[in-house]
């Protein structure tokens, strides 16, 4: 333990008649067929994860794979059937109702897929709401709310009601509300899924801009791999309640754990994602003549050099020291290998 912001160990969530009893009688880790056969819905199965401070962990998976349920377990909106969850080293599942309220008031923020704004409150009142329930005085909470309104670019809309805003604007309100209390940890459940592609892109940029300033610890759900690549430090891929693989985007692409992961990464433009370092051989080239390329370049940027050079190419780090060799065959394999 220690430095992780959030970690969870062997978390289960089953829906059905008596999930606790079922888990107990099946040794705590039944396989999926047994769960299904007994008539239980496996929402989350045996998930262990950790999130580091100011890391963006993206959880992906098809619809119904248990992403929302997992995140709601982490924020304890849903009580897991079994497992342990630690928040700043504190055992979350042992926290009392009062402690949970305190945690949520000061440490957690959450953004929802369908915005979940309060329809009877203006933009300003919605954003000030988390402060209001803490009992912050009106002037102070409205001043803070105005600050965040400026941050998310909603000036001039303070007195509007949610139904008078576009989807993108509503989600800005949702984001602003979740940031009002300056949380340490930020949960986002498909925050941009309900938006049009163009707006979605714009909001992603906005999100990255905010994160550069705020450096929150983030758990972000999406079912869009492109979005995951743009935002993630690490990606966890879920299937039928289970995390099948967790790693950086490059790891998932070059080294998929299962066909399911491979399927997910199939349509990604790898040359834009992979760096030279991801595909090079570690042994430094013997032949020091010829062109050399930087290890941190994207493949797409060095494609021309690779195609024009027949011999293996020297890879250097930022100091110019050789760190490896890039062979054309490896590049082609990495770009087209996994595909039919």
């Amino acid at each position, binding site marked *: 333990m220690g430095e992780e912001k959030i970690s969870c160990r062997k978390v289960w969530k089953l829906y059905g008649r008596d999930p606790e009893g079922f888990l107990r009688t099946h040794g705590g880790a039944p396989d999926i067929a047994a769960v299904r056969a007994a008539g239980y819905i496996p929402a989350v199965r045996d998930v262990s994860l950790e999130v580091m401070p100011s890391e963006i962990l993206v959880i992906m998976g098809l619809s119904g794979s248990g992403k929302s349920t997992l995140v709601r377990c982490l924020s304890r909106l849903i009580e897991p059937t079994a497992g342990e969850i630690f928040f700043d080293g504190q055992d979350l599942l042992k926290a009392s109702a009062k402690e949970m309220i305190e945690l*949520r008031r000061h440490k957690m923020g959450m953004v929802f897929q*369908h915005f979940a*704004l309060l*329809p*009877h409150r203006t933009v300003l009142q919605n954003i000030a709401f988390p402060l209001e329930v803490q009992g912050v005085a009106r002037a102070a909470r409205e001043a803070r709310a105005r600050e965040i309104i400026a941050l998310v670019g909603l000036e001039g809309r303070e*007195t509007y009601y949610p139904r008078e805003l576009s989807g993108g604007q509503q989600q800005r309100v949702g984001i602003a509300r979740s940031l009002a209390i300056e949380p340490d940890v930020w949960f986002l459940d498909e925050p941009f899924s309900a938006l049009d592609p163009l707006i979605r892109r714009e909001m992603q940029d906005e999100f990255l801009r905010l994160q550069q300033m705020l450096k929150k610890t983030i758990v972000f759900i999406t079912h869009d791999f492109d979005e995951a690549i743009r935002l993630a430090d690490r990606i966890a891929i879920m299937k039928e309640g289970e995390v099948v693989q967790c790693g950086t985007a490059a790891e998932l692409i070059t080294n998929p754990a299962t066909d399911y992961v491979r399927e997910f990464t199939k349509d990604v433009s790898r040359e834009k994602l992979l760096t030279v370092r991801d595909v090079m051989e570690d042994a430094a080239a013997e032949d020091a003549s010829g062109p050399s390329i930087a290890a941190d370049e994207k493949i797409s940027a060095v494609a021309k050099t690779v195609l024009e050079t027949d011999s293996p190419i020297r890879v250097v780090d930022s100091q110019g020291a050789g760190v490896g060799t890039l062979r054309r065959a490896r590049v082609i394999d990495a770009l087209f290998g996994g595909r039919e």
Partner: protein
Amino acid sequence: MAETATGAESSPPTGRPRLPSWAIPVLLVGPFLALVMARERLPAWAVTVPEPWHVPFIDWINAVVKVLRKDAIFGLFTFRDLTRAGAEAIDWPLQIVEGVLIAGFPALGLPALPWVLIVGLAAIWGWYLKGPRLALLAGGCIAYLALFGKWKLSMITLAAVLVAAPVAGAIGIALGILAVKKRWFEMLLWPVLNVMQSLPHFSYLIPVAVFIGVGHKAGTIATILFAMPPMARLAILGLRGISKEVTEAGIMAGCTPRQLLWKVEVPAARDALMIGVNQVIMQCLAMVVIASFVGAKGLGHDLLFRLQSLRIGQALEIGVAIVLMAIALDRLSQALAARQPAHIPEGPFWRTHPFLTAAGGAIVGSILAAVLTTPLAQILPKDLTVTTAPMWDALVDIITVNLFDALAIFRDDLLRHVLIPLRRLFQLVPWLALVILVASLGWYLKGWRLALTVAGFILFIAFAGFWPRALITAYMVAFSVVVCIVVGLPLGVWASRGDRRTAIATTLCDTFQTFPSFIYLIPVIMLFQVGDVAAITAIVIYAVIPIVRYTMFGLRAVPSEIVEAATTSGCTPMQTLWKVRMPLAFPEIMLGINQTIMFALFMVIIAAFIGTRDLGQEIFRALTFADAGKGLVVGLCVSFMGLTADQLITAWAHRRRQMLGVA
């Protein structure tokens, strides 16, 4: 796809033997028919429960009532003292509102609000909520009351509604909240709400008369009791209907459970709650009229008096006043429910709040006018109001003179050739046969629990000793419902074709539905005097509305792609109607018929006022003798008849929808 298709065919309760399609109706209805035919050979106890077997529900209830009335069960005071204290508590808000609206406060030397002000406020509020048309409608309706000399009575009625509706609404919301938070409470509440909402109006009056006495207060309390259930029901639905994410957003914001309830859940359920408020107001108005039987004052009291003395013209005049008030209240509260918040642009107060400013201006202006210039603005003296009674009387005279013979012949023929034979037929039904019928239907539609429930309902009626009377009620309801279907179904089909027609029909349905049921007795008495034909006519007019409405909406809800698919497959409009739209809309139409049955049961009891000989008459007698036990038991009989039909039809419609894949 293939899998779901076969899954739907084998129908929900699996594991039953597969039978040819004709066998199911035969098996379900066969035993019933056989028992009815073999009636002569059945032992007498199987036809009507013999006297010694009757379960003395009435005596039990009356024993409880007696204990509550007489014996000091709370140590120092009796239950009745408690209820009377409750009645006193309702008295002072009543006094205040009546003082503001009509009576003034003589002790303080303050007059009531001038009528021009109330008209003005209604209009301003209407404009604020929806626009100039609603302003005209609301202002016009209220102005009518003043100009046509019904001001005082209307304001007394309005005061009762304005006091009863918030109390009923608050109780309803509280019950709804409790039900949503506590599962056991909900399990308890639903059946109670079901019974309360199908209990005839009069059944509410009797216990109130017993525990509180008669008078205006008692009437108001009966009104509160009667108007509360729909609010509780809508509160439950509304709170359940809140998006889960919104609740989660509240929790994540760090709300305590109490903050979550009052700052998130209740406001987010506003739309459903406001629809509930509309219903509560309308129920209150309907009940205030009927509560005049236990001495509620106002329009209803006068209406009752005129009807009893057969002064039809004057009764019609009051009826119009009640109807106009109903329309004004309904439209205003509907507009309130439909109104969504909008941001206010900045500016000086009179611009940001034009309606508040206007209301303030109206208050100052009209009070100045009333005090300083003309007392006419305060209240119109009798010689300045117009009475329409002579006109109505003339109309009634014309009808009686010209149509009396024709109507009398129609009435007598209908009675002799249709109604009396039909009544005899119904009276042949042995209770045992009906129990078996409803139980097997219930079992077939949903399972043994429904079977036991509905069988229990019928058994209660049989063993309470009201079997013959209940059959008369059933005959009137059944005949009326058939007439409603014959009339209403084509109307609904007609209205479903074309947006204009639908709009017109919707407005008409809305308007007629706001009329308190008692109103429908007036024209009927005028045409047919008293008796079964008059009662059935009143029932049909009142109960035809839901079938029209549901048919119309059901047909319109059929997805247009399906209709287009039928048209492109070469269906004629008739074929599209009968082969495509009707079958798809049928579950909805059945729910309409269900509502029609409920409405008919309500009306059949009210029609006891014009001399029927069924359960309604029994309740009426119980009311005169303040026999709470009897009133309640007979009321339950009526309620159980309705619930039997309701439970079976709802189960059927649910099953049918699942089969059509639209549930």
